[in-house]
């Protein structure tokens, strides 16, 4: 227990440092003293706007998205007993961003501001439910991943179809942003629309954590130890769907965070799935804030998408994990 809390303390410390760094670094060079002044609502109005309306919201958006994906990945890995499960790899993020795009494309989002996050969550829930049902019929690690691959290809195809039918170039670039993921220009308002869903999702996942430990022994043994298997499955599916959907509503589809964060944390918590969730959320958030700093400092003509940055680092790590596994433990 003490190991866990000191690990969390270290991760929180690391997260705070990263968030501070993210506030200091940006396209407009601002000295640390101006940022410090702006933080306590002193200094020039311009500095205050840069901090409170641009850098801090963007950083908090990146952190919330990373935390949601990190915890969702950890929980899905526990539920599917598969170290390669992740909202990105299994196509959950892609389904959520497709649903969000459809809601924009058909103008549903003009009815209410809540339509967009709800559409993303419906897309994510549909995908997690499909995967959970598929997982009941097959316990093969490979089959589940193949279903994820098929799901990703299918949503990519539908997305391409929508792009072909897009009425104007603006919506086209909009859709691209959804499938590549970004937290640029996100304000407090956008975060406010996604955060309630992410929070409820994370609470669901934390409530399911002990069941994930029992599932280590296999489903039959878990049930014999008193786990209500279907209730537990609903809880994880709902939690991962809400958290991933909320994350996609805020930033679009960003892959690999939910894969890498739990993989790094696992040895530090003795591989216990129940102890994995919170540290994975903290590390996932931190990793995405670092990736977002990277996006801002890399000198490109147009700003790089955050999802592109995550995939550039995430995909090689994914391959490395697969090779390391050699058919046994991750």
């Amino acid at each position, binding site marked *: 227990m003490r190991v866990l809390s000191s690990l969390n303390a270290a991760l929180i410390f690391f997260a705070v440092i990263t968030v501070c760094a993210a506030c200091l670094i940006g396209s407009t060079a601002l000295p640390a003293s101006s940022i410090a002044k702006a933080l306590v609502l002193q200094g020039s109005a311009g500095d205050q706007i840069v901090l409170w309306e641009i850098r801090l919201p963007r950083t908090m958006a990146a952190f919330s998205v990373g935390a949601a994906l990190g915890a969702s990945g950890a929980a899905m890995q526990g539920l599917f007993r598969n170290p390669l499960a992740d909202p990105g790899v299994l196509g959950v993020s892609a389904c959520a961003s497709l649903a969000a795009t459809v809601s924009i494309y058909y103008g549903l989002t003009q009815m209410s501001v809540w339509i967009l996050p709800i559409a993303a969550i419906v897309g994510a829930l549909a995908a997690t439910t499909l995967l959970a049902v598929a997982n009941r019929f097959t316990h093969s690690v490979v089959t589940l991943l193949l279903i994820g691959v098929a799901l990703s290809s299918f949503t990519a195809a539908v997305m391409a179809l929508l792009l072909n039918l897009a009425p104007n170039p603006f919506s086209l670039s909009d859709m691209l942003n959804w499938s590549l993921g970004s937290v640029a220009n996100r304000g407090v308002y956008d975060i406010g629309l996604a955060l309630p869903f992410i929070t409820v999702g994370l609470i669901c996942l934390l409530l399911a954590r002990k069941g994930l430990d*029992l599932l280590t022994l296999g489903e039959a043994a878990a049930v014999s130890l*008193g786990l209500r298997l279907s209730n537990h499955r609903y809880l994880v599916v709902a939690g991962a769907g809400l958290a991933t959907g909320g994350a996609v509503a805020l930033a679009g589809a960003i892959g690999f965070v939910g894969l890498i964060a739990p993989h790094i944390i696992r040895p530090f918590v*003795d591989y216990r799935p129940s102890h994995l969730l919170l540290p994975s959320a903290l590390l996932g958030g931190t990793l995405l804030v670092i990736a977002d700093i990277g996006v801002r400092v890399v000198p490109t003509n147009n700003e790089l998408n955050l999802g592109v940055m995550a995939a550039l680092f995430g995909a090689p790590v994914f391959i490395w994990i697969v090779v390391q596994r050699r058919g046994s433990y991750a």
Partner: protein
Amino acid sequence: MPELAVSHLSCRRNGQQILQSSNFSLSGGELVILLGPNGVGKSTLIQASLGLVNAQTGTVTLDGCDVLRMRPVERSRSIAYLPQAKQLAWPLRVRDVVSLGRYPHTETSGGLTQTDWNIVGKALKDCDLEDLADRRVDCLSGGELARVHVARAFSTHAKIIVADEPTGSLDPRQAFSFMNLIRNFVTDGGGALIVTHDLALAHRFADRLLWMHDGQIVADGSPEETFTPKRCAEVYGVDVTVAGRSMTIEGVSP
């Protein structure tokens, strides 16, 4: 003394009758071994008896309480189940795996108390796992892993232990030390139901044998009464010779 009573249990799966109106009982202080060839319905019988798969008809009672209608957590405090050996999903430490057996008692309270950890420590000691307590389960031999699962069942403090082919992949020495652990549990008043294909082991250790054939229990009694060459030929299709507490398989029966 606990008493598990199973009566008229039937089970269908995919339109096939897997279990036909089976009856048996299991009391504390009794080591019962369930015998029968592959695919005869042994696993279904024990899973249905624990309410892990739905039975079509039949009742199961433990000390008069309906097992099939019990809350899962309540049932799991009384009956521990060891499914057929399977690799664990994650390489946890031995101590942590054994502590999962305390879940039925700590489900509502949150974490394990010092008392729970003492019980886990006792279970580790009883199964001779103290030196391995901090090892990861992927560094264990098959026999050590089997003992970890027994320790997990012991730490639940259940009155009944049901194990499905626990000795399947063990060498003779490991299989014997596994059965000795179960024997100690039974001597202390627990009841054990073990599935095995090892006829010699069954003949030596069982207080009572259940013989299963085509989804039915065809014989129920002490090894002396039921372990006959004729029954082995009928149920398993092998010729055996029995001499006192030992037996030999001579070959495939014609």
